[in-house]
């Protein structure tokens, strides 16, 4: 047996079979004695004398056994275990201290665990694909259009593929709505058409069946479909024999060839994958910048290299095909950072905040622990006198600290698990990947590490008290009945330092919370520009081939609207391409009649929306000048447009826009179609409550080529007379009375849409306030603890002062003054720290500067007042000190 194992087994045997090991030692020692005595008898001693001499030579058998035991490693373990048991006993003996410490730590560690699990799920966990760090998204980038994710055209992609070495594969895909029929209520599904490279590129294999064969990504052979696990479960009840069955999509039969595993959900919310078979026209349309692309980097390539290569390719394409590609380029981003997008900053700010909470909790428990170690000086001194080394005593204190921290960590884990559902549903609705939130091994390791660090932090605080000199002094003074004082100044300085630190940290937290709250209240007060109450919104999706002309499209919309308006309980209704705050907007390039053509790169851009008559009145958007659209604005009549105030201000200054002409489109002969501006309406915050309204042009759907050509969906807005959700069924029935196969999706109230738009700032300010309050309470408990402890220790002194004629106000000043000095120092340090820390919040704040003087001043005053209260309570106890009693204490 190798010596290490040998050592291990002997040690374990000594530990767990103590009795056997003991008997063996007894046997061996007895054999030794016998042999020794026999030798002495042979040398001529009497039996009795020989035995006595042998025993004397050996000394105490127990001592020898103890020495033998000391030779093994298990001995150290045993003494550690003794310390743990002793520590547990000591903690049980003072339940008040133990409970306060554990609850404090549980709050600190629990908050950290909860936020860390979010950080882990959203930021740290790799995507569920093999070698996922090589996966990238490829987008187009335009100098003109201000959208983050513009697609790539297929000819451009083909060139990029040919000219770039950095990619192993590139696969375009396209999102598409399909109707599922033959299953009762018509249903709209999210489908993604994918090229044959798509699945191999991601490295994902199906749960059942197979992915597409290259032969299936061909015209005429593409009637195959792969299901998502969620759809398979919902529609087919997870039927294991689903492969080979057929489903009806857009009225045609498709054969199911595969089912994807649950973890595969790309692009997000896809129900089905279909083969992507571009037409020759699509393959040649270089100006058709519309396909998202996924890519896998070649081994050893970096995103920077890929981007550099693509920049060269992009410049070459812009020169070669100026009509399609001038002002366009490529943009490559890691798939994960694309997915996480801008969720990382708010999460990291929250993570920082809970980190501060944990530090405050540690300082607090450290303070308590110091006081306790102090009152245990006597016990420690006795142990030192009995031979315990300083290291052993420090170890004892550290072990108790770690025990507390582990208990706190376990309780914190429970707290975090309990808070998890709340976090998921209540908060951060818009955060990607939050569905994956769970307590996994990484989170457990984090909690363990946080507990160990916390335990070590405060467990070592009192260690310096255990110097031998101090303990000797403690023994002597305890014997003389006097108060232990030799290390007093040192320990009270440390305690005061801890309180100052706590106050400073709490100030940073509360300032952050204050800024977030002020920002949120600013944001809530922003006029959205429309009335969200009693509004029902929904989306009607159309098949691309459903309408032949804009007139048909408009007629269908009109028919639906008339039925809906006639339904009982409906006040008004209208349709539009987009609605405010729903996450969809369109942008268009335009020109103004009578003004010179803008030079390249200076094109005029405006937000664009196609609407039906009644849109402004239904949404409650005020008409500022001119008229709204009406039923006489038809395809054949004079083209008209309405602009918002931001548009009028930007392009016509103080003049009126009414009667001016703008153009967004050209007709078939490439002549501009000029719209006459007939009205001006108020601004609407359409993208997010924090983003100012962009210049916007509205056109009647009935006149718009764009509305019909670009999109196959329509938003329906219904203002109801009463509670809107009650009318959902009525409105749907009205729609279905026109076309029983019309899919209706995204049905929700406008209040809900608005709440979703506010969800992120709300959750941020809510969480920061929660952590700020937690930090504040912990810091106040800390101040209270230190001051009341100090009053307790100064009872005699205060008694003497009272006996010598000190007034109540003098005593109050003495006690409160001491606390106030600490709080003031903490506030000063905290203010400086806040100036540095809140800069990180810049991107999260709306309408409030990161150094908002009102918040900084208000929070400082709040902390001072709260600190005064925390000091006042122990001060009142000082006032009640009876000088006679106090003096008799000695």
């Amino acid at each position, binding site marked *: 047996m190798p*010596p290490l194992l040998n050592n291990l087994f002997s040690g374990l045997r000594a530990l767990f079979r103590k009795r056997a090991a003991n008997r063996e030692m007894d046997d061996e020692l007895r054999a*030794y004695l016998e042999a020794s005595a026999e*030798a002495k008898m042979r040398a001529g001693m009497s039996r009795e004398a020989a035995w006595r001499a042998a025993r004397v030579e050996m000394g105490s058998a127990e001592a020898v056994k103890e020495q*033998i035991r000391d*030779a*093994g490693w298990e001995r150290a373990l045993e003494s550690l275990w003794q310390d743990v048991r002793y520590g547990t006993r000591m903690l049980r003996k003072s339940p008040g201290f133990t409970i306060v410490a554990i609850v404090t730590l549980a709050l600190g560690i629990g908050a950290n665990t909860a936020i860390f699990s979010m950080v882990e799920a959203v930021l740290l966990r790799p995507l569920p694909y093999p070698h996922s760090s090589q996966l990238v998204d490829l987008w187009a980038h335009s100098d003109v259009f201000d959208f983050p994710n513009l697609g790539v055209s297929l000819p451009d992609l083909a060139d990029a593929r040919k000219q770039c070495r950095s990619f192993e594969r590139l696969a375009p895909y396209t999102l598409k709505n399909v109707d599922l029929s033959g299953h009762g209520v018509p249903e709209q599904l999210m489908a993604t058409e994918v090229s044959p490279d798509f699945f191999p590129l991601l490295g994902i294999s199906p749960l059942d069946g197979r992915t597409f064969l290259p032969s299936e990504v061909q015209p005429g052979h593409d009637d195959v479909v792969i299901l998502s696990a969620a759809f398979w479960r919902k529609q087919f009840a997870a039927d294991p024999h689903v492969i080979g069955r057929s489903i009806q999509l857009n009225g045609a039969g498709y054969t199911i060839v595969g089912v994807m595993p649950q973890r595969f959900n790309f692009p997000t919310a896809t129900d089905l994958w279909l083969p992507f078979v571009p037409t020759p026209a699509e393959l040649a349309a270089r100006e058709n910048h519309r396909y998202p692309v996924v890519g896998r980097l070649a081994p050893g390539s970096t995103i920077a290299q890929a981007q550099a290569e693509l920049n060269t390719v992009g410049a070459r394409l812009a020169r070669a095909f100026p009509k399609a590609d001038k002002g366009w380029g490529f943009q490559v981003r890691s798939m994960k950072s694309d997915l996480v997008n801008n969720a990382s900053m708010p999460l990291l700010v929250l993570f920082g905040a809970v980190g501060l909470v944990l530090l405050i909790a540690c300082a607090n428990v450290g303070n308590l622990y110091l006081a306790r170690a102090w009152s245990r000086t006597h016990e420690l001194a006795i142990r030192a006198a009995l031979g315990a080394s300083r290291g052993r005593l420090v170890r004892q204190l550290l072990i108790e600290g770690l025990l507390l921290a582990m208990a706190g960590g376990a309780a914190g884990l429970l707290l975090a698990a309990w808070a998890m559902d709340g976090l998921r549903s209540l908060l951060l609705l818009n955060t990607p990947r939050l569905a994956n939130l769970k307590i996994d091994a990484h989170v457990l390791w984090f909690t363990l590490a946080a507990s160990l660090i916390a335990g070590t932090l405060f467990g070592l605080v009192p260690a310096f008290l255990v110097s031998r000199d101090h303990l000797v002094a403690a023994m002597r003074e305890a014997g003389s009945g006097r108060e232990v004082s030799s290390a007093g100044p040192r320990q009270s300085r440390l305690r005061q330092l801890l309180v100052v630190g706590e106050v400073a940290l709490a100030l940073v937290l509360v300032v952050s919370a204050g800024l977030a709250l002020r920002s949120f209240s600013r944001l809530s007060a922003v006029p959205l520009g429309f009335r969200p109450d009693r509004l029902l919104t929904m989306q009607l999706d159309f098949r691309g081939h459903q309408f032949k002309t804009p007139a048909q499209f408009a007629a269908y919309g009109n028919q639906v609207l008339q039925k809906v308006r006639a339904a009982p309980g409906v006040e008004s209704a209208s349709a539009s391409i987009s609605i405010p705050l729903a996450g969809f907007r369109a942008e268009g390039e335009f020109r103004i009649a009578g003004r010179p053509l803008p030079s390249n790169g200076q094109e005029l851009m405006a937000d664009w929306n196609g609407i039906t008559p009644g849109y402004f009145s239904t949404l409650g958007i005020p008409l500022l000048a001119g008229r709204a659209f009406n039923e006489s604005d038809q395809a054949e009549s004079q083209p008209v447009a309405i602009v918002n105030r931001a548009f009028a201000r930007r392009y016509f200054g103080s003049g009126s826009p009414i009667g001016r002409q703008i153009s967004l489109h050209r007709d078939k002969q490439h002549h501009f179609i000029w719209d006459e501006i007939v009205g001006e309406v108020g601004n609407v915050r359409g993208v997010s409550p924090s983003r100012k309204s962009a210049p916007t042009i509205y056109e009647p759907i009935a006149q718009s080529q764009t509305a019909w050509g670009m999109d196959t969906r329509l938003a329906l807005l219904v203002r109801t007379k009463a509670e809107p959700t009650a009318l959902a069924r009525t409105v749907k029935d009205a729609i279905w009375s026109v076309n029983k196969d019309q899919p209706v999706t995204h049905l929700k109230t406008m209040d809900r849409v608005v709440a979703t738009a506010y969800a992120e700032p709300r959750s941020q300010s809510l969480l920061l306030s929660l952590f700020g309050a937690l930090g504040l309470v912990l810091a106040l408990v800390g101040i209270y603890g230190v001051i009341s402890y100090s009053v307790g220790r100064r009872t005699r002194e205060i008694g003497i002062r009272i006996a010598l004629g000190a007034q109540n106000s003098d005593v109050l000043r003495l006690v409160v003054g001491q606390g106030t000095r600490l709080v003031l120092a903490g506030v000063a340090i905290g203010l400086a720290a806040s100036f540095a820390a809140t800069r990180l919040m810049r991107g999260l704040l709306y309408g409030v500067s990161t150094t908002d003087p009102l918040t900084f001043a208000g929070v400082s005053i709040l902390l001072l007042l709260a600190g005064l209260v925390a000091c006042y309570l122990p001060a009142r106890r000082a006032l009640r000190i009876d000088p006679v009693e106090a003096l008799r204490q000695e």
Partner: protein
Amino acid sequence: MPPRPAALVQGTLDMLILKTLDLEPLHGYGISLRIEQISQRVFRVNPGSLFPALTRLERSGLLRSEWRSTENHRRARYYLLTDRGRKALASEKREWSKQIAAIARILEATQ
């Protein structure tokens, strides 16, 4: 009265034990007796040092032990040198001779 046994030089006990067992397996008393005899009563090892040393050596694989009956038909734990132990003894011997020679040179130089 025999002369008082000398204290063992620090760290030499292990080597002496190994050397003793190099000749034949012995039990605890046998080892201490043998050391005493060979050193002509200069060294005496008491059980409080002997047994911890034996435990240590056995744990590190230089010795192994087994219960046997003695020449007087009693049970006793005999210690045997392992191959590793034999090697360790050889290297310790070398090291020791080197040190002795060095010390001797130093002592001569001062005279």
